[in-house]
């Protein structure tokens, strides 16, 4: 590589970092601005008088700003809902997807193409077009505003991605080992459980991360199929949060809440970036 390319790459490298991280730094900076500063209008980037008050308000620690007493309770409820709904949906979706992906990668059976086509169609499905009918159905069968009411559609919409990711991973596994186990007298099922599952674990884990991201991020269903903080997730709660003054959005509080819900994402990304990239691109580009 010539020096010229290196310089270009360097500039590109810096530009990418700025582009990706600027809004994140911005929201963090905003979360440390007090109501005095945001209320009066403060177009400067960094806070002039950094304060932790927004975090106190949102987490209910220490002295809370008058008029914001209910904020922390609602937010913590939403965090709890988001966390468990995402986790349960991820867990179940990955189990279903693992079974399906194993069959797709390994076995010959009728209807395989149909399953793949269906998964593809659902990955492209406009979620909003299901909102009306699901709203109607969930009310009738009593799933409206419950955890399962969100978990079931989340599982459905993450299955295609999980199935693809997993079948791409499963194709890379040395299957001779499974045959060896079968030669030794294991059934197809035993070979699957004892030999392949341990080998497939990294792929399964990656699919789980992507599924969790989807559920953690989902918004349309979250605002349509819930009505109280009993099951409303974080994105929905954030969008409905107006604060004490309806004419002045609570910038600082919203920013602090945004930072709190972004922390898990950043931790997961830092720990598993390599796996996430592999998962996002596996199966997507071949040939």
């Amino acid at each position, binding site marked *: *590589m010539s020096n010229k390319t290196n310089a270009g790459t360097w500039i*590109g*490298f810096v530009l*990418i*970092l700025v582009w990706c991280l600027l*809004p*994140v730094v*911005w929201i963090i900076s905003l979360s440390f601005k007090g109501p005095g500063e945001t209320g009066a209008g*403060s*177009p*400067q980037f960094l806070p002039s008088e950094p304060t932790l008050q927004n975090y106190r308000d949102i987490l209910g620690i220490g002295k809370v700003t008058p008029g914001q007493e209910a904020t922390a309770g609602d937010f913590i409820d939403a965090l709890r809902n988001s966390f468990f709904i995402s986790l349960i949906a991820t867990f179940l979706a990955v189990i279903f997807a693992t*079974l*399906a992906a194993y*069959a797709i990668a390994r*076995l*010959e*059976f*009728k209807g*395989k*193409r149909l*399953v793949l*086509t269906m998964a593809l169609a659902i990955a*492209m*499905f406009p979620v*909003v*077009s*299901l*909102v*009306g*009918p699901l709203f109607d*159905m969930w009310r009738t069968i009593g799933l409206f505003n419950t955890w399962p009411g969100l978990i079931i559609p989340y*599982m*459905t919409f993450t299955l295609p991605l999980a*199935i693809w990711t997993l*079948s791409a991973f499963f194709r890379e596994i040395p299957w001779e080992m499974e045959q060896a186990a079968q030669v030794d007298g294991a059934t*197809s099922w035993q070979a699957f459980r004892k030999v392949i599952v341990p080998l497939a674990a990294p792929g399964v884990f990656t699919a789980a991360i992507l599924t969790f991201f989807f559920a953690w*991020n989902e*918004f*349309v269903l979250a*605002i*349509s199929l819930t009505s109280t903080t009993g099951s409303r997730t*974080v*994105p929905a709660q*954030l*969008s409905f949060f107006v604060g004490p003054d309806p004419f002045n959005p609570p*910038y600082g509080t919203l*920013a602090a809440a*945004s930072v709190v*819900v972004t922390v898990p*994402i950043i931790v997961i*990304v830092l720990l598993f*970036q390599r796996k*996430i*990239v592999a998962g*996002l*691109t596996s*199966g997507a*580009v*071949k*040939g």
Partner: protein
Amino acid sequence: MTATQAPPREDSARGGTAVDSDRSKAENRLGQRLVAPAVVLMLLVTAYPMLQALYLSLFRYRLTAPDDREFIWFSNYATVLTDSLFWQDTWNTVLIMVVTVAVELVIGFAFAMVMHRVVFARGVIRTSILIPYGIITVVSAFAWQFAFSLNNGFVNSWVPFVEDNFNWFGDHWPAMFAIMVSEIWKTTPFMALLLLAGLSQVSEDMLEAAKVDGATWWQRLWKVILPNMRAAIMVAVLFRALDAYRIFDNIFVMTKGAQDTESVSFLTYRQSIEQVQLGLGSALSVLLFLSVLLLAFGIVKLFRVDLAQARGEG
């Protein structure tokens, strides 16, 4: 994934075998059993409600007046298709889709080129590019809404030729611009990563050969790199376009549809959930579904790539 141009797998050779022996019968049964839970779930949550929507769309049915429910054939569709708001929203959605995907393709490709060449700090760049991907869309919309905010944003003071008191959300085009920026920021990483995967499959030997033959950087880009990445570009465009067509979160947070920035998804949501017009909302759902189907079909035809083949599925 070392081969640069892996030949598409022959499906008929493997898939067409007759199910004759006990062994393959058992395999067939096991395969179907393993996919059954996923298939049943997907059908129950998508196909069944979609049929329900198709049925409901033929009724005048508002939840606040359930006794008024009446079969009215295709009147709902006529109402929607003759309403200028529907066409305004469709135009907005198409515009957002075309502009964001085009811009993302360019920026994403530039990102992919840089990431492909960078030999240092790969972890840092991977991490920072994954943060917009992983961040909640609502949070990204808030970040950009506040950045463009008249009172508290930094955009007005940083960007040249913009008055300090310019209200980005006070007019149609600036508001659309702000929405598109937030959408582009959030989804470029996905595009970049897919393109990077495509880029890493372009043979270095071929590039070297082109260089030796005296091809300029520009010629190498258009004659060697891009043609060899066609499958990757196709998959990235298809997925991003369909995703952009569903745009909802950013608009809901940033403008609530004010200044005519509403998208089709937003209109459908408003009719179904806020107005509880289940009949009319269902008609919108069906139309949205059909337009996505049409769009997917159009893109696949346009690029003339078999999607199953592009994804390496047998």
